[in-house]
């Protein structure tokens, strides 16, 4: 474990969090892209 005041410039792989996985990416995409697009299309349809 590195000292609190010493930057972890030599961090080994296990000292970092894992990268964003595809599963996490698609989860994010569903909530923040698919859902809003569905909302916009629905409102467009209702108002026009």
């Amino acid at each position, binding site marked *: 474990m590195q000292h609190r005041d010493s930057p972890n*410039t*030599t961090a*080994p792989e296990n000292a970092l*969090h*894992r990268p964003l996985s595809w599963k996490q990416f698609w989860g994010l995409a569903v909530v*923040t892209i698919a859902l809003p697009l569905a909302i916009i299309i629905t409102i467009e349809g209702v*108002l026009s």
Partner: protein
Amino acid sequence: MSEPTQSTDPSTRPLTLADKKWGILATFGNTTSAAIATWSFVAGATVAVYLDAVSGILITFAGVLIGLFLVILAALPVSQRYGLEAVRSLRPTLGVRGSVFGVILVFATLIGWNSVLAIVLMQSASAVLETMGFVPGSAVRASQIAILLFAVLIVGVLVNRGASALRWAGPAITFAVIALAVMMLVFIVKTYGWSKILNAAPLQPFESQHLNIMIMVELGVASGLSWWPYLGSLTRHSRSVNTAVAPSVMGLGIIMTMIAGIGVIMTLVMPESEGNPVFLLANSGGVWLGLGGLLFLFFANIGTMMVGTYTSVLALKQTPALEHKISWRTATLITLVPVLIVSIAIGDLFLASYPTFLAFSGVLMAPICGIQIVDYFILRRQRLSMEGLYSTKPGGPYWYRGGVNPVGFISLAIGMLAFFIVFDPIAYEPKEGFDFLGASLPSAIVAGLVYYGGSKISRSTRVSLTPTTERD
């Protein structure tokens, strides 16, 4: 390892796994605390100009979510994985010296946001106190300045204690503000009734419903993108991606839209309120509800100012020339003094420019997000050189040409140009092509594509991407 980093200041070093102590509650508390403020009412008032209550709230929600998609991908994974804040995360795209642009951007943007909050707080709270008979008309200006100084003092004290203070203050403020917001919503519905709220027409919409929707989507996207500096600073404390993403979407997306929704409803049923229900509470709700509204103003705006000031101080401390020369306390003062000056000297003028200010956030943040997403996910496959991020010596992986990555800045400029081609943020006027994808999305896409192409043909970037210089 060519150079151990010179940084020994805990505020500038990358956070390790052991340093990351924020769980879901702390991240939710602080992202929500950042999101909820009286600017949400102002945003809601803008929505009511173009759309009715239901479609306005839903479309704003949709736009904010799309903005969050971009900003979360750009800022969260890199900050969370490497323990970086926003400005340091710009080094791979803009270069070691070029990332100073990020300091200027974050500093100017957050001083702008904090000034809007401070102005609204001092003016609204003072007016409420006058309405309730606590302050005579002749002492309104003095009470405004006293409220401003009080708010800035509290923010300064909390930020001076660093992330440990935010860890408890963020959730505490958030739950108080949500409870008070629910109280306000109940009072509005009881006063006007669902029927009037749901049937109220937008104030000054365009003839084209599609254009009304796209303008509000754009407002939402710009609001979502404006969280870029906050997100990196806050989620670097999170223990994992899962404990960072969900509470961020909850706080910056759902709760923010809920408060903006109160502004939409309030403007539709009482346009002269400009979205702010606190005056209704002070006039018609009696002393206790009036005080509740007053508390909302304080908690909401101070909470957001606290997170914004913390983020600005952190950004300022990333400047190579300043990080060892100024203390955290001095950086806090440097961040808060301009807010005091703007609020006292040009408060009304600054507040009147709010929609333009918000649009400019989109102009700057959208291409940055596009570039960062392409750089981190496509070009670097989520692997950065920690040494390069903290090295200031020439020849490092993010040194490029003289410490500046020309490809990053050219992409940024072209992305901004793409925004201006389809939307005029000063006149708030859409141009040809706006009704297809808005302005922020094309700006991010264009900047990302130019960055990808430019990086592929730029020798300097190719050198920086060779595997030997990458380290996890």
